[in-house]
Each structure stands twice: as structure tokens, then as C-alpha cells.
């Protein structure tokens, strides 16, 4: 049964109301939390600052759903620890950390897996203002 909030004054008295034909087919509502974060204990929300990763679909002010439990695969967006900060990069083959903006040089660290804070599962971009 979908858990939509209803005002207190709305009652459904089974003894007097007409049974709904939908009663046999009710399904739970869509659960966004479970969909975006299948591993809630290791999932964290972060905010993007800057526009060097727009080509990958991450704009300034977007919210990232980052999962520490995932191992990065080539093409994944990752959050990495670079120069004492959390940075958004793409994980390329061979452990290269690349940015979309050509002004930002790619990095090829000695132990790339140690620098990956987590893998970005979703980028949440606002539609309406």
C-alpha cells in the first residue's frame, strides 16, 4: 500500500465503504532510497563544486550518490583524494584519473585504488528551479 501522507480527517471504514477493485493488486510505492542506494551503509551524498566535469553530466551544484563499496571500472565517475581534497574524476583504464576539462591534467598515481574515496552511482541534477 503506498505510504502517502493523508490528513487525519480522511477515514476509510471497511464496514460501510465500497471495496476497491484495486485491493487485490496493490503494490508498494516506488522507493527512491532503495533504488539509488542499494548499499545504504556505504552510500554517502556529496555536492559538486565547479564545472570541469559537465561533459560527463555532473554540473556545479549537483548532488552525487557515492558508494564506497563499489570497485571502480573504466568509464566510472569516481571521487578521489587529490591534493588534500575530494575531487571528481573519471576512472580510465590503467588507473588514470581524468577530467573532462582539457585544462585539468590527468593523473596517473602509483597506487590509484588507494586514492579512490568511492564510486559515483548517480548524479542528481535539478530540473525545475
Amino acid at each position, binding site marked *: 500500500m503506498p505510504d502517502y501522507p493523508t490528513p487525519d480527517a480522511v477515514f476509510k471504514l471497511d464496514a460501510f465503504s465500497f471495496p476497491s477493485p484495486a485491493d487485490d493488486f496493490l503494490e508498494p510505492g516506488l522507493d527512491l532510497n532503495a533504488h539509488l542506494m542499494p548499499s545504504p551503509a*556505504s552510500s554517502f551524498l*556529496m555536492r559538486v*563544486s565547479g564545472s570541469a566535469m559537465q561533459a560527463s553530466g555532473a554540473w556545479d551544484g549537483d548532488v552525487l550518490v557515492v558508494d564506497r563499496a563499489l570497485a571502480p571500472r573504466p568509464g566510472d565517475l569516481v571521487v578521489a583524494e587529490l591534493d588534500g581534497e575530494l575531487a571528481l574524476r573519471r576512472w580510465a583504464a590503467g588507473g588514470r584519473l581524468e577530467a573532462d576539462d582539457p*585544462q*585539468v591534467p590527468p593523473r596517473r598515481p602509483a597506487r590509484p585504488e588507494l586514492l579512490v*574515496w568511492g564510486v559515483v552511482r548517480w548524479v542528481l541534477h535539478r530540473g525545475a528551479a
Partner: protein
Amino acid sequence: MSRIAIVDCNNFYASCERLFDPALAGRAVVVLSNNDGCVVSRSAEARALGVPMGASWGPIRREAEALGVVARSGNHALYGDLSARLMALLARAAPVAEVYSVDECFLDWTGLPASGLAARAEALRAGIARQLGLTVSVGIAETRTLAKLANRWAKTAPGLNGVCDLAALPGARRQAYLAACPAREVWGVGRRLAKRLAAQGIATAAALAAAEPEAVRRRYGVTLMRTVLELRGTPCTPLRTALPPRHHYTFTRSFGTPVWQEAELASAVSAFAASVAFKLRRGRALASRVAVFVQTNANRPLEPQYRGAREIRLARPTADTREIAAAARAALAALYRGGFAYARAGVVLSELCSARHAARPLFADPEAGARSERLMAVLDGVNAAFGEGTLRFAGSGGPCPRWAGRRAARSPRYTTRWSELPIVRAGAQAPGRRS
């Protein structure tokens, strides 16, 4: 054969601070208590520099900062959230788990293949480091008391790598460790008990394990006897699967600056009453007694000292902030003495009963109870949705009262506030940022 593991986090608060701030990696970090009073957590680097645990921060601050120590004010919203995540992961690691404190959990591993427990603990350790960025130590033994000692050994003995399965060690090695462990370090033995034992010639865990249980029971009580039996490998304290009911809810704070005026003290006590009433409601309980205590700064013995407490019994059990705060203010009015610099106050709720099973008094207005519950539900709901302190009663004073504890350097509440999410830079390093 019983097998208990205890998992606990190394330097928990300091480690939480590091998770979202890579600039702190490798640095000496300390976390301070309420009011930035004392050091309550130290990173390994801070410990190596010699910062003592529990030290008052004021006197050592300048020297510590000159040595490169970074201090953070307590960020309990963050620590509590990371603790909940840790416990969720640990709950999946055993058929029965008992959360013992904010960063410790007992796991019942009885029945699992005994030879593989160390490997299981290492995998758990790696999994938690990966998923939460926290380093844990695991101690495994036949009893909880021994597991706690194994955990201590896992942290300090070289070559163990954070995991110690005491039950899998040869007897001679276990005995050697127990002989090297002071009795004071055994779970349930405090400093005073250790002194009494030392007077009797029992100075190590091994000596305590060798003591005659009946003699221990006669002289020190059944609790220490159970400790002796546990040190010998006989479990006496099964993991708790149901929480015992609480007897008190408390809210106590030290003031950021001394409070002299009655009105200001009353507003602090009202705010504390509101906070403790919230905890009471969260625990689904009602209280019949409200106690207030106030005290001056005992660390300044040259100043006039006063400490007082007063308890008020309510006409009927309640969880309504208005009634509890009114009782707290009435208690304070009886307690207050002018001319003292109050440094600390607290509100304690007791004589609790369950909100679900409360008996309805004969002459009470039934509607009033329901209205009170709905009002409190709205109050708690708004504060949960928009942040603690969004809605408060006027008697509690403004949002940043003078008496509120100092927290000079609290990190953002990264995991519980939308406005304080960690920032990820897409692009070049921010200008002016130190590498």
C-alpha cells in the same frame, strides 16, 4: 564451544573527522569534549606526540598547535551517523550482535568454524575500512572478558595486524599475555578494585584468573567472581538480545561562560529540559520525577562554591516539554542562590513508565493527553525535518545563547544536513588551498 568477538574502532572520533577531510591524513588530530574542554579522541600521530587522553585543552593548546596538532570540536551528529552505519554492517556479520557503545560491538561467533575466525575477522576489518574508511580491531575468545583483552592485544602487539584470536593461540602464549596484562585493564576492574587486588598480591590478569572463585565472591562480590570465571574461559555473561528498560534520562552541559543571573540560568535549564524531554519521547517513555542540579566550577576552588539539586514529583507521568520545563524551572527557583558563577547544570527525568502502557488517571481529561501527544509529535517532526532547534519554546532563550558550549572548530555535519554535504571539486584545485 563459545566464541565471542569484540569489534571496536581505533580512535573513533578522530577517524570520523578524517573520513571527509583528506587534508587531515597523516596529521595529529584531536577531538575535544563538550565546550572544547578536554581531549576525548586522538589520532595515532597525536598520541605519538604525547598529547594525553583526557587532558584539558586550554593549558596545552598553544604548545600542541605549535607542534602541528589540529583540534576539532565534537561533531556528534556525524559520529552518531557513522556509528549507525558501522553497527548496520556488523549486524550482518554474526547471528547475534550486541552494540556495546558508540564504536564497540560484540558478535556471537559460536558455531562458526573455529579455525577460520581470524580470517573472517580480517575480511570484516578490510570490508569496514573499504565501506566506511574506519579502522577497527577485533578480539576473539571464548568469553567477553577475554575477547576484550584479545582486542587490546590486537591493537598493541606487533605483527597481529588488528586481529587477535586468543582461542586459537597455544596455551603458553595466552598465559604469557595474561601475565603481562595489568589487572586494572581487565573488563570490570577499575582503579579502586585494582588497588584492593594489588594489596592482596593480585596485580596481573593471570593472577586474577588463578584466584579461587569462591574466595573472590566472598571478598569482592559475585560480579568479580564472574570475571574470574570468564578469564578462565567459562562464559558467564551471554550477549543481551533485549535492552533492559532505562531508569533515567539526563541532559547535562557545562556552560561556555559562567552564568550569574537567575533569568539566564532559567533559560538554560528550560533548554535542557526540552532536550531531555525529547530523548524521553524518543524512548517512548513518560516520566514522573524531574530533578535539576546546578553547580559552580569545582576546578576553581578559590571561588565561592555551591552545588544544589532539587527534585519535583509530577502529578501524573508525562512526556510534554511544557510540563517538564515548568517543573524544572520551579525546581531551579528553589535552588538558585545569587552571587555564584554557575558553570554547569543538568536535568534528570526518572520514575519512568512506558508511553504505550501508561494507565490513565481517573479524573484526567482524555482529550488533553491526546492533544499533548499531537503537539509534541509536530514539534519533534519539524525539528527532525528542518534541523534541531528550528522550533523551541520561548523560555529556552535564543538560538545562540551566551551560555551555550564553545565549539570553536566543529566540522560540517556531512551526513545529516543537506546544507553541509561534503564538497567534491570538479576542476582544478581551489585557489589559495594549501597542498
